[in-house]
């Protein structure tokens, strides 16, 4: 196995220098806010994702958690990709990321849709680590639903 397929430079960058980390209150007091806390019981990784929305776009996606490089880098990429996006746009990206992670390494990611998320293509080849990569994305989906915005149909982690 090629370790650098799993630990791409992009992933290590996001892990060492996470974007948008830390839970934040919504700037606009009228914003709908939803939060979800997800745990990976096999390893103890935890993440809390909070979304703020004006009903049209996700004005902020903030998060805090502890866990491995894959789970923490994935949250950073999630923040980068989906903050400021409309629910429809976010759904497209969310579906593409879940499809990539569920693909056992057989899915070719579209960089136009997934941006830095393409770096996780290698992770999909390691079944034990797919949950790590999806942890924040599943928490985001729940948080968005709690803020009154549906993202993506049912997904199987």
């Amino acid at each position: 196995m090629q370790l650098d397929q799993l630990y791409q430079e992009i992933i290590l960058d996001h892990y060492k220098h996470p974007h948008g980390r830390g839970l934040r209150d919504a700037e606009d007091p009228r914003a709908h806010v939803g939060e979800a806390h997800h745990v990976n019981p096999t390893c103890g990784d935890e993440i809390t994702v909070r979304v703020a929305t004006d009903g049209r776009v996700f004005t902020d996606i903030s998060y805090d958690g502890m866990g491995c490089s894959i789970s923490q880098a994935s949250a950073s990429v999630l923040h980068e990709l989906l903050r400021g996006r409309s629910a429809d746009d976010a759904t497209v990206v969310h579906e593409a990321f879940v499809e990539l992670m569920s693909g056992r390494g057989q899915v070719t990611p579209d960089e136009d849709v997934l941006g830095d998320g393409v770096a996780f293509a290698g992770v999909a080849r390691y079944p034990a680590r797919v949950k790590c990569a999806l942890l924040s994305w599943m928490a985001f989906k729940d948080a968005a639903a709690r803020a009154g915005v549906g993202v993506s149909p049912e997904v199987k982690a």
Partner: protein
Amino acid sequence: MTTIAIPQGMPQYDDVPRFDVATVRADFPILDREINGHRLVYLDSANTSHKPRQVLDALAEHYARHNANVSRSVHTLGTEATEAYEGARAKIAAFINAPSADEVVFTKNSTEAINLVAYAFSNASARPDADPRFRLGPGDEIVISEMEHHSNIVPWQLLAERTGATLRWFPITDQGRLDESGLDDLVTERTKIVSLVHMSNILGTVNATARITARVREVGALLLLDCSQSVPHMPIDVVDYDADFIVFTGHKMCGPTGIGVLWGRGELLAVMPPVLGGGSMIETVTMARSTFAAPPARFEAGTPPIAEAVALGAAVDYLSGIGMRAIQWHEKELTAYALDALATVPELRIFGPNVPVGRGGTISFALGDVHPHDVGQVLDSLGVQVRVGHHCAKPVCTRFGVPAMTRASFYLYTTTEEIDALVAGLEQVRKVFG
């Protein structure tokens, strides 16, 4: 270099029994495997051990030659299977110096064995005529420790919920030892059972039980020792330990999965109500009610894991052939070597005792801020198999302020070269995440 002379009359260094590790390794077919292009370095025996050819052969031989159900057939195969199954029970009884083979109850694993005792308490608590030692209610207390595997926490939490009893626990010291300072306040006349891990699956600590046993006897409580991590690695004598119950599991001691053991003092098993009902555990059955067989059959409802028990008997023969004292000493040397070797790795923090005294060959650690998942992944790419995560002992992780740990654990087939491979692998981890 100074050498310390051991005084005459004391056991000399050379008196320690030894065995040839290379010869032992040749008995384990899986050790020839390559992982990701590297020689397998298996440092996860606390999770499950590998099986020698002798055990694999016993399993295959049973199915190929002697397969039949036990305790119910008059035919030849049934008799052979029963003799093999009961023969395994006798071997296991001898292995732990149980006074009688009837004190050995086969279970699925340690978890089931602990649950069996917990449910016996539960069932007794619902019957006014049950033995008072097993009757629990509000005001009664169950004592465990912060060092337990989840399998020795959750069954007691559930029992406390069902009966209204209170669950209490020994804390852990910063050095990873059991904190016995509050023993007399913790174990009191209210205590009905103390259920304690003998060797921690995460810290490697081997608990000295004598003081606790003395206190348990003083207050008239019962003592269960979770020996899942100790029976595979050191000589255990249930008479010497003066416990009331011990539990252990086959797959951690060169045996197959699906077979575990509850040993209980004969007079206690005799008054314990059954837990699982079904075939084999009865004396007589009418449509209205049933009476029950004597132990151990009372606690072995249904067709048991026959071949697994037979193979566990073969595992016990195998371990006894090498000698448990020799295995214990081998692991002590490995542990001393590993503690020294790991001390050379920058930013490595060991959780638990950092001297090879009062501990076994299971060492958990943190490497700087690198998450154990990442440590384990890089090590796996080099063929080194360690366990990462909370090791089913979340309270221990919480106690030491980490979400997870990386754990290396040794057994009779482990070599110092494998520990060197671990240390070299940790350097690689530091390069990737440094």
